[in-house]
Protein backbone atom coordinates (compact mmCIF):
# COMPACT_ATOMS: atom_id res chain seq x y z
CA UNK A 1 0.00 0.00 0.00
CA UNK A 2 1.48 3.35 -0.97
CA UNK A 3 2.32 5.87 1.68
CA UNK A 4 -0.32 8.50 2.32
CA UNK A 5 0.55 11.51 0.13
CA UNK A 6 0.57 13.86 3.13
CA UNK A 7 2.76 11.67 5.33
CA UNK A 8 5.87 13.71 4.72
CA UNK A 9 4.46 17.17 5.15
CA UNK A 10 2.14 16.28 8.04
CA UNK A 11 5.14 15.17 10.09
CA UNK A 12 5.66 18.72 11.35
CA UNK A 13 2.08 18.91 12.62
CA UNK A 14 2.55 15.44 14.08
CA UNK A 15 5.55 16.36 16.22
CA UNK A 16 3.77 19.54 17.28
CA UNK A 17 0.78 17.46 18.42
CA UNK A 18 -1.57 19.26 16.05
CA UNK A 19 -3.11 16.35 14.19
CA UNK A 20 -6.57 15.08 15.03
CA UNK A 21 -6.66 11.81 17.01
CA UNK A 22 -7.42 9.86 13.82
CA UNK A 23 -4.68 11.60 11.86
CA UNK A 24 -2.26 11.21 14.75
CA UNK A 25 -2.90 7.48 15.03
CA UNK A 26 -2.46 7.03 11.29
CA UNK A 27 0.77 9.02 11.32
CA UNK A 28 2.06 7.08 14.32
CA UNK A 29 1.56 3.82 12.42
CA UNK A 30 3.29 5.18 9.35
CA UNK A 31 6.21 6.53 11.34
CA UNK A 32 6.69 3.31 13.23
CA UNK A 33 6.71 1.39 9.96
CA UNK A 34 9.41 3.50 8.31
CA UNK A 35 12.99 3.96 9.49
CA UNK A 36 13.29 7.07 7.32
CA UNK A 37 10.18 8.60 8.86
CA UNK A 38 11.39 7.75 12.36
CA UNK A 39 14.69 9.50 11.72
CA UNK A 40 12.90 12.53 10.30
CA UNK A 41 10.59 12.57 13.30
CA UNK A 42 13.60 12.53 15.63
CA UNK A 43 15.19 15.40 13.72
CA UNK A 44 12.07 17.55 13.84
CA UNK A 45 11.47 16.82 17.52
CA UNK A 46 14.96 18.10 18.33
CA UNK A 47 14.16 21.35 16.53
CA UNK A 48 10.80 21.69 18.28
CA UNK A 49 12.44 21.07 21.66
CA UNK A 50 14.99 23.81 21.04
CA UNK A 51 12.29 26.22 19.89
CA UNK A 52 10.17 25.53 22.95
CA UNK A 53 13.17 26.18 25.19
CA UNK A 54 13.72 29.53 23.48
CA UNK A 55 11.55 32.17 25.04
CA UNK A 56 11.48 35.90 24.40
CA UNK A 57 14.64 37.19 25.98
CA UNK A 58 14.75 39.45 28.99
CA UNK A 59 18.33 40.29 28.14
CA UNK A 60 19.34 43.60 26.62
CA UNK A 61 19.14 43.45 22.84
CA UNK A 62 22.65 44.79 22.45
CA UNK A 63 24.02 41.77 24.26
CA UNK A 64 22.36 39.40 21.80
CA UNK A 65 23.40 41.39 18.74
CA UNK A 66 26.99 41.66 19.92
CA UNK A 67 27.16 37.98 20.79
CA UNK A 68 25.88 37.04 17.34
CA UNK A 69 28.25 39.50 15.73
CA UNK A 70 31.12 37.74 17.48
CA UNK A 71 29.91 34.41 16.12
CA UNK A 72 29.59 35.84 12.61
CA UNK A 73 33.09 37.29 12.82
CA UNK A 74 34.52 33.98 13.98
CA UNK A 75 32.79 31.85 11.36
CA UNK A 76 33.16 32.98 7.78
CA UNK A 77 30.50 30.56 6.54
CA UNK A 78 27.90 32.43 8.52
CA UNK A 79 28.23 35.25 6.05
CA UNK A 80 27.31 33.30 2.94
CA UNK A 81 23.86 34.82 2.89
CA UNK A 82 22.19 31.49 2.50
CA UNK A 83 18.46 31.49 2.92
CA UNK A 84 15.63 29.29 1.87
CA UNK A 85 13.57 29.93 -1.23
CA UNK A 86 11.31 32.90 -0.64
CA UNK A 87 8.46 30.85 -2.04
CA UNK A 88 8.38 28.78 1.12
CA UNK A 89 8.52 25.65 -0.98
CA UNK A 90 10.79 22.74 -0.25
CA UNK A 91 14.47 23.45 -0.83
CA UNK A 92 15.71 21.70 -3.93
CA UNK A 93 17.62 18.48 -3.38
CA UNK A 94 20.82 19.88 -4.86
CA UNK A 95 20.50 22.93 -2.63
CA UNK A 96 20.20 20.73 0.42
CA UNK A 97 23.14 18.66 -0.70
CA UNK A 98 25.19 21.80 -1.18
CA UNK A 99 24.28 23.05 2.26
CA UNK A 100 25.16 19.76 3.86
CA UNK A 101 28.52 19.82 2.11
CA UNK A 102 29.21 23.29 3.51
CA UNK A 103 28.01 22.48 6.99
CA UNK A 104 30.34 23.19 9.83
CA UNK A 105 31.35 20.35 12.06
CA UNK A 106 30.88 20.49 15.80
CA UNK A 107 29.33 23.03 18.14
CA UNK A 108 31.80 25.78 17.28
CA UNK A 109 29.08 28.40 17.13
CA UNK A 110 27.84 27.62 20.61
CA UNK A 111 31.35 27.70 22.04
CA UNK A 112 32.08 31.02 20.36
CA UNK A 113 28.72 32.45 21.39
CA UNK A 114 29.13 31.34 24.99
CA UNK A 115 32.66 32.74 25.15
CA UNK A 116 31.58 36.03 23.57
CA UNK A 117 28.61 36.31 25.86
CA UNK A 118 30.72 35.61 28.92
CA UNK A 119 33.23 38.24 27.82
CA UNK A 120 30.46 40.78 27.17
CA UNK A 121 28.95 40.14 30.57
CA UNK A 122 32.27 40.71 32.27
CA UNK A 123 33.18 43.62 30.01
CA UNK A 124 29.77 45.19 30.42
CA UNK A 125 30.22 45.52 34.14
CA UNK A 126 28.77 42.20 35.25
CA UNK A 127 25.41 41.89 36.84
CA UNK A 128 23.96 39.12 34.69
CA UNK A 129 25.29 36.35 36.82
CA UNK A 130 25.49 38.31 40.03
CA UNK A 131 21.80 39.16 39.79
CA UNK A 132 20.80 35.84 38.29
CA UNK A 133 18.13 33.67 39.76
CA UNK A 134 17.85 30.02 38.83
CA UNK A 135 15.39 30.86 36.08
CA UNK A 136 17.71 33.30 34.39
CA UNK A 137 15.28 36.18 34.47
CA UNK A 138 16.95 39.15 36.11
CA UNK A 139 19.68 40.80 34.13
CA UNK A 140 21.59 43.99 33.89
CA UNK A 141 20.63 46.05 30.86
CA UNK A 142 24.08 47.11 29.79
CA UNK A 143 22.90 49.24 26.89
CA UNK A 144 20.13 50.83 28.88
CA UNK A 145 22.52 51.61 31.72
CA UNK A 146 24.68 53.60 29.34
CA UNK A 147 21.78 55.60 27.92
CA UNK A 148 19.67 58.03 29.92
CA UNK A 149 15.89 58.11 29.96
CA UNK A 150 13.07 55.60 30.13
CA UNK A 151 13.43 52.61 27.82
CA UNK A 152 10.58 52.42 25.30
CA UNK A 153 12.03 50.02 22.74
CA UNK A 154 14.84 47.51 23.31
CA UNK A 155 14.91 45.12 20.42
CA UNK A 156 16.86 43.31 17.74
CA UNK A 157 16.23 44.12 14.10
CA UNK A 158 16.35 41.03 11.90
CA UNK A 159 16.56 40.57 8.12
CA UNK A 160 13.62 41.34 5.86
CA UNK A 161 15.29 39.65 2.92
CA UNK A 162 18.45 37.74 2.19
CA UNK A 163 20.88 40.07 3.94
CA UNK A 164 22.69 38.27 6.74
CA UNK A 165 22.79 40.94 9.40
CA UNK A 166 21.13 42.12 12.55
CA UNK A 167 21.19 45.21 14.70
CA UNK A 168 20.33 46.19 18.23
CA UNK A 169 18.14 49.21 18.83
CA UNK A 170 17.40 51.04 22.02
CA UNK A 171 14.90 53.88 22.18
CA UNK A 172 14.66 55.88 25.39
CA UNK A 173 12.39 58.79 26.25
CA UNK A 174 13.99 61.89 27.70
CA UNK A 175 12.56 65.32 28.40
CA UNK A 176 13.52 66.62 24.97
CA UNK A 177 12.22 63.68 22.93
CA UNK A 178 13.67 60.26 22.12
CA UNK A 179 17.22 59.05 21.95
CA UNK A 180 17.78 56.16 19.56
CA UNK A 181 20.93 54.06 19.57
CA UNK A 182 21.61 51.56 16.79
CA UNK A 183 24.44 49.03 17.05
CA UNK A 184 25.51 46.41 14.51
CA UNK A 185 28.65 44.73 13.31
CA UNK A 186 26.97 42.89 10.48
CA UNK A 187 25.29 45.55 8.34
CA UNK A 188 27.18 45.56 5.04
CA UNK A 189 29.18 48.64 4.15
CA UNK A 190 27.31 50.54 1.44
CA UNK A 191 28.61 52.05 -1.78
CA UNK A 192 29.06 55.79 -2.01
CA UNK A 193 25.77 57.62 -2.41
CA UNK A 194 23.70 55.00 -0.59
CA UNK A 195 23.03 55.08 3.13
CA UNK A 196 21.04 53.32 5.81
CA UNK A 197 17.96 55.03 7.18
CA UNK A 198 16.12 54.19 10.40
CA UNK A 199 12.34 54.48 10.37
CA UNK A 200 9.65 54.42 13.02
CA UNK A 201 6.81 52.57 11.29
CA UNK A 202 3.15 52.58 12.25
CA UNK A 203 0.12 50.45 11.37
CA UNK A 204 -1.04 50.36 7.76
CA UNK A 205 2.23 51.67 6.37
CA UNK A 206 2.47 51.11 2.60
CA UNK A 207 4.56 52.73 -0.14
CA UNK A 208 1.43 54.54 -1.36
CA UNK A 209 0.27 55.59 2.09
CA UNK A 210 3.37 55.79 4.27
CA UNK A 211 2.92 55.90 8.02
CA UNK A 212 6.50 56.31 9.12
CA UNK A 213 8.95 58.88 10.40
CA UNK A 214 12.66 58.87 9.74
CA UNK A 215 14.88 58.50 12.77
CA UNK A 216 18.16 59.25 11.02
CA UNK A 217 20.61 58.13 8.37
CA UNK A 218 24.16 56.83 8.51
CA UNK A 219 27.00 54.93 6.92
CA UNK A 220 28.69 52.10 8.83
CA UNK A 221 32.35 52.62 9.61
CA UNK A 222 34.73 51.18 6.99
CA UNK A 223 35.21 48.09 9.18
CA UNK A 224 31.44 47.45 9.12
CA UNK A 225 30.69 48.76 12.58
CA UNK A 226 27.50 50.72 13.20
CA UNK A 227 27.14 52.52 16.51
CA UNK A 228 25.06 55.62 16.02
CA UNK A 229 22.84 57.74 18.24
CA UNK A 230 20.00 59.92 16.98
CA UNK A 231 17.40 62.18 18.48
CA UNK A 232 13.86 62.08 17.09
CA UNK A 233 10.36 63.20 17.91
CA UNK A 234 8.72 59.91 16.90
CA UNK A 235 6.35 58.34 19.41
CA UNK A 236 6.87 54.55 19.65
CA UNK A 237 3.34 54.10 21.02
CA UNK A 238 2.05 55.24 17.61
CA UNK A 239 4.94 54.03 15.45
CA UNK A 240 6.07 50.89 17.28
CA UNK A 241 8.07 49.12 14.58
CA UNK A 242 11.65 50.00 13.72
CA UNK A 243 12.87 49.42 10.19
CA UNK A 244 16.18 50.02 8.48
CA UNK A 245 16.23 50.62 4.73
CA UNK A 246 18.93 51.29 2.19
CA UNK A 247 18.27 54.64 0.57
CA UNK A 248 19.84 56.43 -2.36
CA UNK A 249 21.06 59.93 -1.67
CA UNK A 250 18.37 61.49 -3.86
CA UNK A 251 16.97 63.89 -1.30
CA UNK A 252 13.62 62.07 -1.09
CA UNK A 253 12.12 62.20 2.42
CA UNK A 254 10.28 58.91 1.80
CA UNK A 255 11.46 55.31 1.91
CA UNK A 256 12.16 54.28 -1.64
CA UNK A 257 13.58 50.77 -1.22
CA UNK A 258 12.42 47.66 0.69
CA UNK A 259 13.49 47.28 4.28
CA UNK A 260 16.76 45.60 5.15
CA UNK A 261 16.10 44.93 8.84
CA UNK A 262 12.94 45.13 10.92
CA UNK A 263 12.38 44.97 14.64
CA UNK A 264 11.08 41.81 16.22
CA UNK A 265 10.33 41.50 19.86
CA UNK A 266 10.39 44.52 22.04
CA UNK A 267 10.12 45.04 25.73
Amino acid at each position, binding site marked *: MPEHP*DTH*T*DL*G*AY*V*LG*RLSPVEHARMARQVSASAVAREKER*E*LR*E*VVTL*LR*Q*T*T*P*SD*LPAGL*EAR*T*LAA*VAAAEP*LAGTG*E*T*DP*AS*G*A*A*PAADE*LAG*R*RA*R*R*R*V*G*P*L*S*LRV*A*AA*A*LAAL*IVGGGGGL*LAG*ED*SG*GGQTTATLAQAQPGVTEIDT*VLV*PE*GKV*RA*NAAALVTKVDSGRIIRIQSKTLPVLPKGVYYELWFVGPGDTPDKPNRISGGTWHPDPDGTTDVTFRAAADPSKLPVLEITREPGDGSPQATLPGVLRS*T*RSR
Partner: protein
Amino acid sequence: MTQPDELVERVAREFLVRDAVAALAPKHREIIELSFDADLADGDIAARLDIPVGTVRSRTYYALSALRLQLEEQGLVA
Protein backbone atom coordinates in the same frame (compact mmCIF):
# COMPACT_ATOMS: atom_id res chain seq x y z
CA MET B 1 20.74 26.13 41.03
CA THR B 2 21.95 26.95 37.56
CA GLN B 3 25.74 27.10 37.33
CA PRO B 4 27.15 30.23 35.67
CA ASP B 5 28.70 28.29 32.77
CA GLU B 6 25.46 26.44 32.18
CA LEU B 7 23.53 29.67 32.25
CA VAL B 8 25.83 31.38 29.77
CA GLU B 9 25.64 28.38 27.45
CA ARG B 10 21.86 28.26 27.70
CA VAL B 11 21.51 31.94 26.91
CA ALA B 12 24.02 31.65 24.05
CA ARG B 13 22.05 28.71 22.68
CA GLU B 14 18.87 30.78 22.77
CA PHE B 15 20.60 33.58 20.90
CA LEU B 16 21.74 31.15 18.22
CA VAL B 17 18.29 29.56 17.86
CA ARG B 18 16.70 32.99 17.44
CA ASP B 19 19.39 33.91 14.95
CA ALA B 20 18.69 30.70 13.00
CA VAL B 21 14.98 31.52 12.91
CA ALA B 22 15.77 35.05 11.75
CA ALA B 23 17.83 33.64 8.89
CA LEU B 24 14.94 31.59 7.50
CA ALA B 25 13.01 32.61 4.41
CA PRO B 26 10.25 35.05 5.37
CA LYS B 27 7.44 32.53 4.89
CA HIS B 28 9.26 29.94 6.97
CA ARG B 29 10.11 32.44 9.67
CA GLU B 30 6.51 33.62 9.74
CA ILE B 31 5.14 30.13 10.29
CA ILE B 32 7.65 29.44 13.07
CA GLU B 33 6.86 32.70 14.83
CA LEU B 34 3.11 32.16 14.57
CA SER B 35 3.50 28.60 15.84
CA PHE B 36 5.89 29.18 18.73
CA ASP B 37 5.84 32.86 19.67
CA ALA B 38 2.14 33.47 19.06
CA ASP B 39 1.32 29.83 19.91
CA LEU B 40 -1.42 29.66 17.29
CA ALA B 41 -3.06 26.43 16.09
CA ASP B 42 -3.00 25.39 12.43
CA GLY B 43 -6.52 26.70 11.85
CA ASP B 44 -5.73 30.07 13.37
CA ILE B 45 -2.56 30.36 11.31
CA ALA B 46 -4.48 29.39 8.17
CA ALA B 47 -7.04 32.10 8.86
CA ARG B 48 -4.36 34.66 9.67
CA LEU B 49 -2.43 33.96 6.47
CA ASP B 50 -5.48 33.16 4.32
CA ILE B 51 -4.08 29.83 3.23
CA PRO B 52 -5.41 26.25 3.57
CA VAL B 53 -4.60 24.24 6.68
CA GLY B 54 -2.78 21.76 4.46
CA THR B 55 -0.48 24.55 3.33
CA VAL B 56 0.12 25.55 6.94
CA ARG B 57 1.17 21.99 7.70
CA SER B 58 3.42 21.59 4.70
CA ARG B 59 4.97 24.99 5.31
CA THR B 60 5.51 24.04 8.95
CA TYR B 61 7.27 20.87 7.87
CA TYR B 62 9.54 22.70 5.45
CA ALA B 63 10.17 25.49 7.95
CA LEU B 64 11.22 23.02 10.65
CA SER B 65 13.38 21.15 8.14
CA ALA B 66 15.05 24.36 6.98
CA LEU B 67 15.59 25.40 10.58
CA ARG B 68 17.08 22.00 11.30
CA LEU B 69 19.72 22.69 8.64
CA GLN B 70 20.47 26.07 10.16
CA LEU B 71 20.82 24.52 13.61
CA GLU B 72 23.06 21.77 12.24
CA GLU B 73 25.25 24.47 10.73
CA GLN B 74 25.40 26.12 14.14
CA GLY B 75 26.31 22.76 15.68
CA LEU B 76 23.28 22.89 17.95
CA VAL B 77 21.93 19.58 16.70
CA ALA B 78 23.78 16.67 15.17
